[in-house]
């Protein structure tokens, strides 16, 4: 799980163009949206693409992301349970 969390942090920084950030700057237990990383609705949609592209998880409804993207740890747990690749 810890390895997946690190991998996810790197992927999030890359796909969301979080310039100047390193994995150490992201608290895996902190909320991804709202305060913190300053992500918006387009970032949430891009995380949905990341889940499909890298882990084979297809979300039909953008609202499902609200629960899954609570934190990097929650996201990693979801991926662990549902990944197809």
């Amino acid at each position, binding site marked *: 799980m810890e390895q997946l969390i690190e991998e996810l942090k790197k992927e999030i920084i890359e*796909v*969301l*163009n*979080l*310039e100047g950030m390193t994995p150490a700057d992201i608290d895996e237990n902190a909320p991804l949206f709202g305060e913190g990383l*300053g992500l*918006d*609705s*387009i*970032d949430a*949609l*891009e995380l*949905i*693409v990341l889940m*499909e*592209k890298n882990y084979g998880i297809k979300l039909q*409804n*953008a609202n499902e992301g609200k629960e899954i993207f609570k934190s990097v740890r929650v996201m990693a747990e979801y991926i662990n349970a549902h990944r197809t690749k």
Partner: protein
Amino acid sequence: MIFNIGDNIVSPLGWTTAENWSAALAECSGLRPYNGTFGLPEPFFASLIDEEKLNERFLKLPHSQIERYTKVEKMAILSAADAVQSAAIDPSAPEVIFVFSTTKGNVELLEDLRGYEPERPYLWRSAQLVARHFGNPNEPVVVSNACISGCAAQVAAARLLQRHGYRYAVVVGADVLSKFIISGFQSFKALSLQLCRPFDADRTGLNLGEAAATIVYARDCADIPAGRPCVTLAAGAICNDANHISGPSRTAEGLFAAVSQVLDGFDINDVAFVNAHGTATRYNDDMESVAMDRAQLTDIPVNSLKGYFGHTLGAAGILEVILSTQELLHHRVLRTVGCETPGTAAAVKVTMGQESTDKSAFLKMISGFGGGNAALLVTVGEPRTATETTGNGGGVKLLAEARISDTDALLPDGTKLSSTSVDTKQWLGELYNHLGMNYPKFFKMDCLSKAGILAAEMVMRAVGQSNEELKNDWGVVCFNSAASLDDDRTYQATIQDPENYFPSPSVFVYTLANIVAGEMAIKYKMRGETSFYVSQHFDKERLEKAVADVFARTGAHYLLAGWVDYDNGHCNVQLFVFKIEN
């Protein structure tokens, strides 16, 4: 005010305004499910024009050659030909100007040029071909302002007629659907898989549609053909939310401002209905309801035509004005097809059946990506003087100027910076660092928006306005040649390979030319007009005319304006701050 002297709609519901009106009155819809179309892996619900039927119809035009034109061009020509005929004007006369409204033109050619020349995906190229088909000698005006394009084109037409000596303006809007457009909206999770439900409590997204629509406007009411009713575009306004490139303001700032401007001095008791954008997305319809609530329009019937035609993109603002005009002329307000149980942030009076009316005006509202909002007021019968927003007289003064090329940047104080980077993309990052900017959004932008924001930062600093304080009297006017083609190619790469098909929403959102203007409005909180025009070459005189028009017709005192182009890795930006001297 200007006068509608001829119009046409080309859609799956008909080839003329009359055919489309009859179909809409019978509550027919062009929307239906598609599966496997355009090679898309997922089904969608849309309104598509059959190209074989289009070709049959097109061949009936004199001098028509199917192979010369793409689908969107054929639709535009067919629509304009019928409108010009009903207006009884000579489209080849120098007193006629063509105004072309489109969001994506021939973007599907990025997947495969199909034998067309490499310039064919450029919006100015399609506009030229349409205008030249009619032998028109003037360089057409191309408006590409995302979903508000059709209404923005009518605002532009009013200025061309009233301030630039043209007698007639042929305003043509057209867009076609493709793998590019549908996959992008799918990546946004914005499409409904069933018939869209505008203003419904359980609305789940929009449907897209193909259409072309044309209105021929005349400067003088004496040019209205005998027997045709007097239809007047009484007022029009464009205002930016300065909120988010893809999300409307929750408090409807831009739309409320635009609606307030066009209704200023007009008795709202004469307004028969509001024709909303009504896309059936949660946020758009909520925002429009809030705008109507703030403008005290909640007792006036409101409808959306998206359940008949889908969202027809660059044609929408023209098509919906034509059909709404028919509603006024026939004293019939159409039902909002698709809406079963209204439910929006503010309660509004959605038409749940056809209603009769004896009133003589309607309000058109529209909003789009880039934060743009527009409102138009149309009347029938005796022309009435709505208070046209009077702008500011006096001379236009240049306050600051900055330039960015592939290798250099010229700052407003005359300092010249030279690139030490390997390419233009990296050079833009170098400039960001040189300016010491702290704007994380910069790194999410496409190169066109990056170049625009860098130049904007230079000139806004020079005039002491690079802060985020609200600037209600600032607007943005941009021109370029490539529209968003550079980013379009990047997006195309995310969908080109079926084995590696992952449409990127963060790339797709920049596939609209006007997003760069929206980014400027957002960063510096400018809530005046934002307009985007496409032309083959930078024409300083045309820019200055557009700037003078905005000063003369809106409440803007300052404009961020210029040429902002990025194409195939090459950057050309010349951005100015202008002030109107009272």
